């Protein structure tokens, strides 16, 4: 019997990616939230190098780092493929996931959320520029980042569909609107409407 566990921490977007991947592929798993277990025990046992979630544990063997986990999931459960077949297209998907996860590209969103004053304004501008890249260069005319179907890059970008709206509400600044970013806006609606994703979105409140 296969045993699949996901160690996560609500509402971490990196944890969500892993869960969405398993859900889309119809793989049964047990979700264990970091708050429910003693950090010094399970996390140190399964991810001694980084001590972070998410961790996937498959038949007792742990795998850490969300991107490494996603590739493992893709290779182990090939149904509902998350990467294209063509090597060049795969390289492009990986390139953009790598870009998106780069700490210099994540920082502006974090500052947009928690920064104040000048810092916040500057971050808002940087976020707009990044969104422009995602809208024009990465998504383009496609329905999903993965093409006709949700793929790995959609899952990596998924936090935007899940949480960016809430962040905008909290800081009371609207950036990702339908007029400025029509394609991203449409993508968010499509992503959220997917039956699997719909059941696994963080609750608004």
């Amino acid at each position: 019997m296969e045993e699949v566990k996901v160690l996560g921490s609500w509402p971490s977007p990196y944890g969500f990616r892993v869960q969405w991947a398993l859900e889309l592929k119809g793989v049964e798993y047990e979700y264990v939230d970091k708050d429910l277990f003693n950090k010094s025990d399970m996390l140190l046992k399964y991810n001694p190098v980084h001590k972070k979630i998410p961790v996937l544990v498959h038949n007792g063997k742990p795998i850490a780092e969300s991107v490494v986990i996603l590739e493992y999931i893709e290779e182990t459960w090939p149904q509902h493929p998350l990467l294209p077949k063509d090597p060049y297209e795969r390289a492009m998907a990986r390139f953009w996931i790598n870009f998106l996860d780069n700490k210099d590209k994540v920082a502006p969103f974090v500052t947009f959320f928690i920064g104040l004053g000048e810092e916040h304004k500057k971050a808002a501008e940087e976020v707009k520029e990044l969104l422009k890249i995602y809208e024009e260069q990465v998504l383009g005319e496609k329905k999903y980042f993965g093409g006709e179907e949700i793929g790995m890059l959609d899952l990596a970008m998924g936090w935007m569909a899940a949480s960016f709206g809430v962040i905008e509400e909290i800081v009371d600044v609207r950036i990702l609107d339908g007029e400025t970013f029509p394609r991203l806006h449409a993508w968010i609606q499509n992503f959220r409407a997917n039956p699997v994703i719909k059941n696994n979105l963080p609750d608004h409140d």
Partner: protein
Amino acid sequence: MASGEVKVLGTWASQFAMRPRIALNIKSVDYEFIEEKNLLEEKSQLLLQSNPVHKKVPVLFHGDNKPICESLIILQYIDETWSSGPPILPSDPYDRATARFWAAYLDDKWYPAVKSLGIAEGDEAKKTAMAQVEEGVALMEEAFGNCSKGKGFFGGDEIGYLDIAFGSFLGWLRVVEKFNGAKLIDEAKTPGLADWAERLCSHAAVKDVMPDADKLAEFAMIVVAKIRGLGLAAHSL
């Protein structure tokens, strides 16, 4: 499968540019090496056009495809495109995950520590950076034991993804050892890695692309002086 000419844009000193070259050698794929002459101060038009996002080497050109950037992503592309040649990633998904995990660790956590050590000024700063570098090497010694399963390389009998990812740093590691009067990989502290390093550097796919340690040391001094002089951030390297 795309067919056509293969070119690698890189520099003789760049550990990242070495990676696709080793991989192509393993697959016995002919390629043209285009050298970027002055990476630090004056990037070429070719580089700026083919990697506008990061402006870094290596860049892989294959036939009519648009350029591919990021060395680890290029390694996977090479493995998937020339799939009939010797494999670069292991065949077992868990072993693949392990290889990817350590390569990501090296690039995201360990190499920044090596860079910090290179430009650190003052004893305290050097000590802190050195400790981080040493910790990483110790982790890799352990990883070698786990991944090699008694064989000669991280990839087993043959060079693989993690051999390439870590092996590409060997030249610079020797430079760090020289400049700091330290031993990072040696028979006493890291016996597994010490033997592995020798084996790797003399491997046919590696020996012609591994830069000479003395030449690198000379180059390193110039680079460090430039970085300090220009006030460049370490992460722009």
